[in-house]
């Protein structure tokens, strides 16, 4: 059985025992895979280490144990194969919006001419609807616009895996909805593989093909893996009338509220509905049960 495109294997993050305090395990035994083109969301309460998992995949932090494989190769250092959308945009403030995208594209394609860089960067800015604002600096953009530039910048380098760390956390609901739609469109257009962290259950269901739920830290684990078998395009108004959506939503909220209670125990699923196909403790998602719809 070949490994999935992204394969996180038994990753653990801990801080060693110091003096009187014993070893602090943030999370342990975290394993999951993502196939090409999937959109995975990881949800959980603050402090469970989900940002750290992303950071480990990105190579910005080291894992205490376990490995990460991208397309069969182990990765441990940061690189262009894993693009990142940071929680606070992290745009370079001395560059314009266009300049920021071009900066990243240039790093990816150092041999390209200025014209090529411009054309490529402009294309992605247009896809997030910011063509008119390309000459503005981040300080002159709204929070939503800054995040969109961050998204354009990450997509523009066409990484193998795109990592998003609570990208819409700081935005109001309306802006968030509009950017989510742009994100879905971008995702479908490019076939990008995405791993996103969020604590918004609705967002996770709306955007993802699969949702992973983490228990609370310390010693957090993945307690559930839910396939989101809702067809696309997903329309918010229609989803609200869809029973499956509400089931998923309830299930996830239930898990999140239980999350603190059971860390090591496996959360039993009494339901065996077609929607919620929970893979309990398996390291790799079996390919036949993946129901990605595009």
């Amino acid at each position, binding site marked *: 059985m070949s490994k999935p495109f992204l394969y996180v294997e038994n990753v653990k993050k801990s801080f060693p025992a110091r003096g009187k305090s014993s070893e602090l395990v943030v999370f342990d035994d975290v394993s999951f895979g993502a196939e090409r083109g999937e959109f995975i969301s990881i949800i959980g309460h603050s402090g469970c280490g989900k940002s750290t998992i992303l950071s480990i995949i990105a190579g910005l932090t080291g894992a205490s144990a376990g490995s990460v494989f991208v397309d069969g190769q182990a990765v441990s250092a940061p690189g262009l194969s894993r693009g990142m959308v*940071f929680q606070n945009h*992290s745009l370079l403030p001395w560059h314009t919006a266009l300049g920021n995208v071009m900066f990243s594209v240039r790093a990816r394609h150092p041999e390209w001419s200025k014209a090529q860089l411009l054309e490529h960067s402009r294309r992605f800015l247009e896809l997030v609807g910011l063509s008119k604002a390309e000459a503005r600096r981040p300080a002159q953009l709204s929070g939503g616009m800054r995040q969109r530039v961050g998204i354009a910048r990450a997509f523009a380098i066409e990484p193998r895996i795109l990592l998003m760390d609570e990208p819409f956390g700081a935005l109001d609901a309306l802006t968030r909805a509009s950017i989510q739609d742009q994100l879905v469109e971008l995702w479908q257009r490019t076939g990008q593989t995405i791993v996103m962290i969020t604590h918004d259950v609705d967002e996770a269901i709306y955007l993802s093909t699969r949702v992973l739920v983490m228990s609370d830290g310390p010693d957090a684990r993945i307690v559930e893996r839910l396939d989101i078998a809702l067809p696309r395009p997903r329309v918010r108004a229609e989803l609200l009338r869809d029973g499956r959506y509400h089931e998923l939503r309830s299930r996830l909220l239930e898990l999140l509220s239980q999350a603190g209670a059971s860390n090591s125990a496996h959360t039993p699923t009494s339901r065996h509905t077609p929607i919620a196909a929970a893979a309990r403790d398996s390291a790799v998602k079996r390919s036949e049960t993946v129901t990605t719809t595009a």
Partner: protein
Amino acid sequence: MESLKLRAFLLSLIILLVFAGSWELIGLSQVPETRASSTPGLVAAAGEGARLPRPSELVTFAFEQLRDPFYDRGTNDKGIGIQLAHSLGRVLLGYSLALVLAIPTGFVIGMSPLMMRALYPFIQVLRPISPLAWMPLALFVIRDSAASAVFVIFICSLWPALINTAFGVSSVHADYLNVARTLELSRLRTAFTVILPAAAPTILTGMRISIGVSWLVIVAAEMLVGGTGIGYYVWNEWNNLDLRAVLFSVLVIGVVGLLLDAVLAKASQWVAYES
């Protein structure tokens, strides 16, 4: 905010006129100094001339000097323009040398906590040493007075630029560095395309403080060393008891200092950004 600019300008003008006006009036009513003072010889010898010149006299003198600033009638009689040129030349030389050392060193220190700690005591000991204290050492080792002056400018204006550069580089936001890491930028590229622009405002501030120090130092250094230059001119005119010239040159020093600072303030604007 045009109204604010206009009002501020008018207020400045009023303050100037009130100050100059009062000075003029006091001067007109003043009786020449005759009573005993701490410098009796000076006062006695000067007689009528030993009082502070009035603004009107100063303005007349200024016009004379500025009409022909580059005259040269011998060693101790050169125009204000020539004196300034000498001073500025020395400042630019000493300042540039200081920057050439300060900025790369500051960069290295900023990026390496080890170097920061190791060099810190040296920086802190050398920094407070007054230019006047450096002078004898410089003259002894370098011997040439002009070169000594340049050296003293160098050694005194080094520190603000160095310290600010180190500080600016070390406080570059981790976010920007993470962006560079995820883009697989080499250390050199990261230094030039991320760290440098990020630290530039702080570096420019250091450079701005340094030019102020340079200008301060040159006047002091020239007073000691002599020859040519605005500092020497002030001292020489004091020895000639030409207080108009002294005051005038003091004002010129101030104005040139302002201009140097303005140049660097403009440069600071170019690299500024909002985060």
